[in-house]
């Protein structure tokens, strides 16, 4: 095991687990509590489309992912804000369209498509030093903003209208959340890939939701579950020679299943 952690690419992967898994899971708490899971899916697939555009143009996939994901936030943000049933339909159409567009563009990429396939399924072991720095920067920024604006964010998460009636700029915080969601999703695309990244947004936060009535604890548990899922995926995939992204997703699903079964809330909610 010591030999394993001495390898540079494994060290990079471990840092990606910490910053990417933690960052995605913190954003996941917003996605789960604001009940906007489709928004997460839509932006993840938009990031994939952007990465494909970049590969076709011969530039860094991260640049395209960031640009298209941020642009998609401008569309999906107001759509999800309407909080109507029809908005989910629009988002569903949008995410399938971006996915279709991504696959279509992939077919136009000349030569071997290994880089493109990595963006679909993830390739945490090939993550670069630059990507690690970006993930670290985003993770620390999101964490600092959460600590500084915890009271405003908690009010917005409880109820945007009630937050607004208290004098909080709910819209600013809502779009801030979407903006950082777009950045972290794009930067984490290489961890589990565009197809599966959504699960790292939703599973750890949903597992934490089962276990606590305190918002601060929920953030802490979600980030921990996200990091542990990534670490489990990394270790299992190394020893059993299976795809890392898939095992990360399975690990996060297993954590959710355990949290759901062991949740003290299920019994208390029935008694309430």
């Amino acid at each position, binding site marked *: 095991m010591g030999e394993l952690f001495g390898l540079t690419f494994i060290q990079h992967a471990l840092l990606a687990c910490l910053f990417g898994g933690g960052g995605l899971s913190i954003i996941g708490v917003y996605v789960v*509590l604001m009940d906007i899971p489709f928004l997460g899916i839509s932006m993840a697939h938009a990031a994939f489309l952007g990465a494909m555009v970049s590969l076709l143009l011969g530039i860094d996939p991260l640049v395209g992912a960031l640009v298209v994901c941020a642009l998609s936030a401008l569309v999906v943000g107001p759509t999800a804000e309407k909080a109507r049933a029809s908005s989910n339909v629009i988002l569903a159409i949008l995410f399938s369209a971006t996915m279709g567009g991504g696959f279509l563009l992939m077919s136009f990429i000349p030569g071997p498509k290994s880089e493109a396939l990595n963006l679909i399924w993830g390739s945490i072991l090939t993550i670069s030093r630059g990507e690690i720095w970006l993930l670290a920067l985003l993770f620390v920024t999101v964490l600092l903003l959460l600590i*500084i*604006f915890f*009271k*405003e964010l*908690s*009010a917005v998460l*409880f109820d945007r*209208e*009630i*937050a*607004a*009636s*208290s*004098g*909080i*700029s709910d819209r600013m915080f809502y779009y801030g959340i979407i903006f950082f969601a777009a950045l972290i999703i794009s930067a984490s695309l290489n961890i589990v890939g565009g197809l599966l990244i959504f699960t790292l947004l939703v599973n750890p936060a949903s597992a934490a*939701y*089962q276990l*606590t*009535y*305190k*918002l601060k*604890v*929920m953030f802490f548990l979600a980030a921990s579950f996200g990091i542990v899922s990534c670490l489990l995926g990394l270790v299992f995939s190394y020893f059993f020679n299976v795809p890392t992204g898939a095992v990360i997703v399975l690990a996060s699903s297993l954590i959710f299943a355990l949290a759901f079964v062991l949740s003290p*809330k299920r019994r*208390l*909610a029935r008694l*309430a």
Partner: protein
Amino acid sequence: MDPIISLTDLTVCYGTNRALTDFSADLYRGDFVALLGPNGSGKTTILRSIAGFVKPTAGSIRVFGNDATGGIGKEIRKNIGYVPQAHTIDPRAPFSVADVVAIGRFGAAGMGRRLSPEDKKLIQRSLRDTGIAPLADRPVGHLSGGERQKVQIARALCQTPQVLLLDEPTAHIDVKTQDELMDLFKNLHDEHGITIVLVMHDIHNLPTQCNRSIILSHGRKVYDGSARGISPRAILSHLNGSRSAQRVQKTATAAEGRRRHG
């Protein structure tokens, strides 16, 4: 005396649906106003327009002397306590009663700033005044409908508002809790001097402090006058369509004249 809230020829449309038509009313400091009417008559739209959540299609809104037609600023909003209609909360939601009540102080505390000892005192006082201090640590999703309403009232109250907007606070609540809430509203009006605008369905349970009733039907005002200027039977008759709107409005005009000059 200048009105603290002035609504002039207010028309609100949701898409093609006209929710409110040419509604005008001036609300004065110390008023205890009941907005009455059947479902879809525009009561909630008026309340949400004052609170700044609905932008009127036509007409104007002035709040505390400021134009609030396009929405109200944060500073004005802090002086308006808004209690929306009760809605269900997931029993697993990670928010305690104290967490929700504290939201009322967040705007006043300032962005990115921690709550001051004074803010914390106001939160405790609101919990006590509404009788929910023993529930402070309970998850808010575990409370009954009446208790949840008290949490929202406590949250609005700790804003130390000049105006309290209450949207059907007694709907779907047992009679005993309804009476408790009515006593609470009377106390807030008499002891704290808060101007109250109350949307109600149950006309038989109007608080005695209520000095003015505005009755709406199909988005139009059909009565505006003393709460005692028209009997519950007359209101019911009107809302059931068995009395002409003209006759009720005539009573309203006379009562409004007496109120303004008397």
